[in-house]
């Protein structure tokens, strides 16, 4: 009779621990999803800055139509991207187009001194950093989530309830990994 009670208590404890592990897996997964969504917030900020930037540059350099078109086209593609792959490609295009835009600005010293332009440039640079930090945070959350599914004993619960590991955010294009060449 006494043995039965002890067994029931042990089983009860195990169930409680199991519930605790399951819940923490749910929490970690939600953190990953939230972190991914936050990256989108920063990307959106970047898209929102661009029209202003283009207008400011246009005010001084009306004739550089090609560059403006490239930037606007890349931005539209990025906003309307459906899959992660599409978005990645659009992002790369946008980064390239922005590089050309800033290269053009070099030829217009008055523009370079313009307060509005300088503020926009700083905003853009800040947003680029924030995108990087947001991606870093997402990767940190993914690491915690994946680790929890791999270590014992949470691995048992993870497998029992078919939790899946998430992918890290990685650069698709090998070219983007090359160091930036600055030539004068």
């Amino acid at each position, binding site marked *: 009779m006494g043995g039965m009670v002890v067994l029931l208590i042990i089983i009860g404890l195990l169930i409680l621990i199991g519930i605790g592990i399951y819940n923490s897996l749910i929490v970690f997964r939600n953190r990953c999803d939230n972190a991914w969504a936050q990256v989108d917030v*920063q990307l959106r900020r970047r898209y929102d800055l661009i029209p202003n930037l283009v207008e400011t540059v246009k005010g001084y350099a009306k004739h550089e139509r090609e560059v403006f078109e490239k930037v606007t086209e890349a931005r539209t593609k990025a906003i309307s991207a459906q899959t992660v792959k599409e978005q990645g490609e659009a992002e790369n295009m946008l980064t390239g187009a922005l590089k050309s835009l800033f290269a053009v600005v070099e030829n217009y010293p008055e523009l370079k001194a313009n307060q509005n332009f300088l503020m926009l440039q700083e*905003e853009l640079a*800040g947003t680029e950093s*924030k995108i990087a930090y*947001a991606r*870093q*945070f997402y990767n940190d959350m993914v690491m915690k989530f994946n680790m929890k599914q791999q270590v014992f004993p949470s691995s048992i619960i993870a497998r029992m309830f078919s939790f899946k590991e998430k992918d890290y955010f990685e650069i698709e294009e090998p070219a983007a990994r090359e160091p930036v060449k600055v030539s004068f």
Partner: protein
Amino acid sequence: MYEQITRNKLKSVFLVLFFVAFVFLLVWVFEEVTGWGKGGFVLALIISLAMTVGGYYYSDKIVLAISHARPVTREEYPYLYHTVEGLAIAAGVPSPHCYVIDDTAPNAFATGRNPKNAVICVTTGLLQKMNRLELEGVIAHEMSHIKYYDVLLQTVAVVMVGIVALLSDWMLRSFWWGGGRRRSRERSGGNAGAILLLVGIVLAILSPLIAQLIQLAISRRREFLADASGAMLTRYPAGLASALRKIAADPEPLEVANKATAHLYIVNPLKNVGGKVNKLFSTHPPIEERIAALEKMSFDKT
């Protein structure tokens, strides 16, 4: 990097537990020696809490007022705001408010009772003298203090120091006035009572000092932790290391700093003299040790 963070967290937990055990020991001796029972401890707790809680709740306002810090807008200091916001994203905390102290001495501090009410303050000297990587390192360090609730921890430690100070003071007074009902003593016999009395006296005299030393040890351990997790945020320990070197080499004293707020700053603004005993009484670890710890992270590549 990860190892240092874990080690620092474990060491601070150990220190806090040791502190709690020490307080319990003191309470037990106090009980035995004065015969007041738990009431003494409860009273000390209430008084110490009352003295400290106000400071904790208004910690941000008080410190900012003492330091003559002014709130700044995004338009005035866009780069500072972007850096703070970016690192807040990396740390997973809400973005703190930014304040600035007009002083050419480079320094920074963070305060606020929890991440939602947090504040980061830098001097104009810091903004002028640091490059981007160094500034990021410093702000990452401050962000880590916020993330790990260091203001709360320090407040708890200060409350405990207060309890110890009050209890030892009352114990000493009870010896002086020969008061307290020592019923238990009469029962257990002379010798044990005398030893306990002696222990009580020694503890009463030394406890406040011991408590202070523990609290300062906790403070130093949390500084190491903030360095390590700050390096995690930027993934670039060399930035903070370089900033620490520059700040330490800067000969200017921070005019608004005083002993009450010195512990908050990233580098002790009161240029103290060195020496082994001084190390024990310092709120910050020596800069060379901090830089060495950061440089070890770069080599480990973990």
